[in-house]
């Protein structure tokens, strides 16, 4: 397992904290969040959130739409600093935003290379794009991409980097089943190879359970539920433990929890017992 390694302390290289918060600072963590608060106006979207991610850990973040997942990611990416609380993150981060956010004035391959150190070559971009099945669109302008293509370009852009923390905000949401599987596999492989910490926001419980070491559920501005996914890899959705975990998570997410280990086999996917009236 990848998550059981945490080593000695590294220097954090920042000024002393202004507002001390509980929790270890000098652990060998990849992410250390303590007492984080982020408000828009009166509404505290993130409210006293605590989170530690170990180096090399793959964490999935689930939660209702609008619960503050993207906001948390922006804070971790260092993009939103109107916060209270302590946040320690690696210097080297890569983000795939929820919206693709490609620079419209750069062709796709240039978008992929944007910000890379050195003088990366076009080939590097093409290779990355090919991995997400976009090699043929490398020279396109971003605004001519389809929704899924743009999302994949954005993913490729995040993945060519070599970060210590990879932040992925619903990176597979606009992909069809097959493309999604391939992209998931790609992320899993890269994570394995590089050993970076990953925080993946997703709405797909199975995706979370297939990929992550740990699944978090955000609610009320904090991590309301957390479960280790201690299944051996490669994981199999047909594994009863998988089914149990899924049921528990879906239950936590408010989808009617008929699903138990015993009901699993008749309740596929996230749609559980959804029935549409007619």
């Amino acid at each position, binding site marked *: 397992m990848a998550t059981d390694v945490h080593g000695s302390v590294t220097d954090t290289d920042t000024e002393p904290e202004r507002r001390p918060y509980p929790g270890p600072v000098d652990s060998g963590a990849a992410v250390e969040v303590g007492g984080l608060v982020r408000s828009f106006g009166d509404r505290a979207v993130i409210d006293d959130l605590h989170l530690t991610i170990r180096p090399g850990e793959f964490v999935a973040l689930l939660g209702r739409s609008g619960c503050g997942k993207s906001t948390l990611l922006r804070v971790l990416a260092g993009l939103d600093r109107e916060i209270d609380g302590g946040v320690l993150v*690696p210097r080297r981060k890569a983000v795939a935003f929820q919206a693709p956010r490609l620079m419209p004035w750069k062709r796709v391959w240039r978008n992929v290379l944007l910000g890379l150190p050195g003088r990366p070559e076009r080939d590097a971009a093409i290779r990355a794009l090919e991995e997400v099945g976009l090699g043929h669109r490398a020279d396109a302008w971003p605004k001519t991409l389809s929704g899924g293509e743009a999302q994949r370009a954005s993913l490729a852009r995040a993945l060519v980097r070599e970060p210590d923390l990879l932040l992925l905000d619903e990176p597979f949401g606009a992909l069809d089943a097959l493309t999604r599987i391939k992209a998931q596999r790609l992320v899993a492989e890269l994570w394995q190879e590089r050993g970076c910490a990953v925080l993946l926001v997703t709405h797909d419980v199975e995706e979370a359970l297939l990929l992550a070491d740990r699944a978090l559920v955000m609610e009320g501005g904090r991590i309301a539920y957390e479960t280790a996914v201690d299944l051996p890899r490669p994981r199999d959705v047909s594994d009863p433990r998988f089914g149990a975990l899924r049921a528990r998570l879906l239950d936590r997410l408010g989808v009617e929890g008929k699903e138990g280990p015993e009901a699993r086999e008749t309740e596929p996917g996230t749609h559980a017992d959804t029935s549409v009236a007619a």
Partner: protein
Amino acid sequence: MTVDQAVAGHAPPDISAGPVQSSLAKGEAREREEVRRGVTVADGGGGPELARVVPVSGRRRSVPRWLRRTVGPLALLVLWQVLSASGVLEADILASPGTIAATAGDLVSDGALPSAMLVSLQRVAVGLLLGGMTGVVLALASGLSRLGEDLIDATVQMLRSIPWVGVIPLFIIWLGIGEAPKIALISLGVAFHLYLNVYAGIRGVDAQLVEAGTSLGLSRWGLIRHVVLPGALPNAMTGLRYSLATAWLALVFGEQINADDGLGFLMNQAREFFRTDVIVVCLVVYAILGLIADFLVRTLERLLLQWRPTFTGQ
């Protein structure tokens, strides 16, 4: 947000020391990974170097915006005073702020400046109105339809480059020497500025939003009102900035024609009769008008463009 903010709490990834990266470089990455994961648990591994995300207070800007913006103009004023007092700027080059203030005081107390401002203000108001409407209508015509563009745009681009001083004789012939040519000059300046910016704004509206509007069943006019015009608004604001300044500047030419009052006249006359101090007073008035215009447009922008989370921030 500003680049300052954006970059400050977020040091650029310092990977430049590493070897040249291949796309999703596998070989080298794997080695590192093995070390880190403990396949060779050599040094026990360590987390990556962490950096603190330094919180900024949301209400850190206690000094109000307009106050901070006075810094530049005030600095200029102080510089002027210092240079004058120290004798670097001789009085015959540029009188000291004190002298200018005294002259301004005279001009105000004898009613010359207020009456000039009043007269000019009326002209400016009418000119702004006429020119503004013309400019926006032309911009709409040429921004919204291809045919309009073909007919109007090149023509306006052409006329816009004409120095209006040269046309004053023609104006006199066509419009006489009353208010008409003065207002025409102001209107022209205003119209061209608004045209240029509104047109650019219209042509910069996101086609996706126009599509969305169309698909929502907006009529032609609804599309203009709800999609195209709001989308062109940021540019229109720039146009307005220009227009406000231009309207007053046009006075300098407009009030050469049969005027015996007005800011432009005051300035022309002062120039005619070497009243350097009056000229400087006029310039200062113009500068203040510029600040007022800026303030107005900023206020408008704050009201009308609050939806716009741009690089502007706050």
